């Protein structure tokens, strides 16, 4: 089975994405040209057949020592970071079977990754404006407070 998704989030800052991936305890594989998925479209879910599924420019995956490896082993699916014609990057993945960790860890719409990516973008920008930044968590939200005299 294949249940493939190209996420609506357009990534424009790879450094912020790498920071978000590290925060979430996942691994970044720079320059990896393919990501693990079922391998072919089965037609059981809507999928854009013009997309070169499985091909990418970088990969987000489980770390070798990640507890989810006990369940999925080396066959755990991965998230492809795919460069678009616009210069932005899209995230593509297969959430079926060995890809189930992606939604269980990051949320159905990769919400936790969106959250950490946004936090990384904001933190970098606040620091660039000359502020000291303190990060806290509040009711599931990330709060960044920048202070400048």
């Amino acid at each position: 089975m294949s249940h493939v998704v190209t996420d609506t989030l357009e990534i424009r800052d790879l450094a912020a994405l790498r920071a978000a991936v590290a925060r979430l305890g996942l691994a970044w594989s720079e320059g990896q040209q393919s990501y693990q998925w079922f391998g072919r479209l089965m037609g059981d879910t809507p999928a854009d057949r013009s997309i070169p599924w499985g091909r990418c420019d970088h990969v987000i995956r489980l770390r070798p020592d990640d507890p989810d490896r006990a369940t999925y082993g080396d066959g755990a699916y991965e998230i492809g970071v795919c460069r678009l014609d616009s210069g932005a990057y899209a995230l593509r993945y297969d959430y079926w079977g060995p890809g189930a960790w992606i939604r269980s860890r990051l949320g159905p719409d990769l919400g936790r990754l969106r959250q950490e990516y946004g936090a990384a973008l904001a933190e970098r920008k606040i620091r660039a404006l000359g502020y000291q930044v303190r990060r806290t968590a509040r009711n599931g939200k990330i709060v960044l407070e920048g202070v400048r005299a």
Partner: protein
Amino acid sequence: MKRITVTIGEDGTATVETRGFSGPECETTTRDLETALYGRPGKSHRTPEYFHRATIARKVESGQ
């Protein structure tokens, strides 16, 4: 003391709040942050502090 607070929800949506700014600097800082987050400025809401400071500034300019 100038403060910027960015709150990012579990779905990635963010809100930007500023304190201690006067007038346009508040808007330019908020716009810079929104552009960094979304690629474009979002809808900004001026705090009462903005209007208070701006009103004082206008009074000073007009000699009131």
